[in-house]
């Protein structure tokens, strides 16, 4: 597997072998290792964008990685607002990136 996982580390040593977990991100089937967070497993495969801002539609990814900033929230098995940095992947998990929301009443519903 060619990914960003740190398998050998000069001080921390070898990454212990772990069970493979299957999940899906935005409908695409993927694999990760047991115990990995959603943020870590996606970054390992080069995916940084975890949501698009609800109003501006600009891409967002992890920022603090420890649950404080709420930037990495995704939808997990239909529940939205789940922090990707604190949630570990489970077999069959369906994860979706947050999307820009429609704002039909913005500026009184008048399109400029």
């Amino acid at each position: 597997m060619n990914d960003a996982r740190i398998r050998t580390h000069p001080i921390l040593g070898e990454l212990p072998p772990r069970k493979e977990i299957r999940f899906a991100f935005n409908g695409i089937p993927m694999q990760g290792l047991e115990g990995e967070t959603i943020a870590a497993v996606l970054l390992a495969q080069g995916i940084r964008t975890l949501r698009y801002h609800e109003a501006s539609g600009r891409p967002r990814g992890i920022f603090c990685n420890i649950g404080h900033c709420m930037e990495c929230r995704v939808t997990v098995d239909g529940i939205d607002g789940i922090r990707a940095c604190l949630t570990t992947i489970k077999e069959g998990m369906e994860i979706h990136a947050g999307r820009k929301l429609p704002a039909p009443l913005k500026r009184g519903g008048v399109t400029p």
Partner: protein
Amino acid sequence: MTDIVIIGAGPAGLSAAAVCAEHQLKVLVIDEFMKPGGRLLGQLHREKNGTWWNGWEESASLTRRAEQSGADIRLQTSVYHLQSDHQGWNVYTSAGIIKTPYVLLATGAAEIPVSLPGWTLPGVMTVGAAQVMANVHRVKPGNRGIIIGLNILSFAIARELQLCGVEWEAMVLAPNAMLHPLYASPRHAADLFARTAHLAPAFWMRAGGKLLSFSWAKTLTVRFFPKSGVNVWGIPVRLRHAATEIIGKEQVEGVRIVEVDADGAPKPGTERDIPVDFVCVSGGLYPLAELAAVAGCPLRYIPELGGHIPLHNEHLETPLKGLYVAGSITGIEGAKVAMAQGRVAGLSIAFHHRKGDRRLQEELLHAVRDVHQTRESAPIQFHPRITEGRKAMKELWNAAHHNG
């Protein structure tokens, strides 16, 4: 029935848990993270004697000790409110409300964000985020990056991340005026070097650069700054450059930097773009005191301790009955001080619970002394005036106490 709920399974919380459990209290430790250890988990640095401080292993041994003593550690559980009634404390968690006579807040600290244009792009993260990604989750946060913000934490993490193959294009100053003045200007960055060089020569010697031989580091004379920066562990540390913007469309593509004068004011026309694939920002740390605030605990603003701190005494009691604090919530310091404070809080609670056991009182006195000793022998201080900050809190406590 739980005797004590400890919020935060970091070095302070786990140490307190072991002490309380060893004194036959029924202990419950709650933490949001999936592993116990708190921010200790990702720490990795060389000690004065040349051995490695491996936060992962330290966390494992603290956890083992707490669990073997009988403490229950509940992970991936969030605490969102804290309220007292005539029976004690109600701890509101994502897994229900827990009643307890004693609560220890060992919530630690969070990073102060550095906001500049482009800071929301994927690939921009705090230095702490990168540390956790690499050393805890074992995923490389990026290949070649820039660190924006010069402070003790960003230097330590820059070094740690080199161990897993991350390359640093440069470390530059954060944009002026939006940060704590301590971190914003070349003058203050030089001050940091000089002060830490004096406090802990071994740290900068190990840093590989011969920083102590630089005349500016000794004299604090800003005009002697080398414009090209100084080299620390092979990383160009640019004391005369600040970031103005992070560039990229869908993710980080580079950083725009500008030359600044000794006070941090940018020189027009000196901007240039440096291509990188990720960016770490670092504005320092602040104590996580929200739960103390919602509980109704008075806070005091002490910049030397990192910001707003719950009022507390040396036994780590707050003015609220049954509410205690330990670790970085009492002031930003390292893991060893947090561990020593955890011991104080644990003994303090056990002493109160046992209604004045003479032997416990002696142990408590000992533990308080140990906190001072640990602080004095720490290789590096997050804030050079930490001792003054601790003294200020002591005086504020005494003032509040005497006024009734």
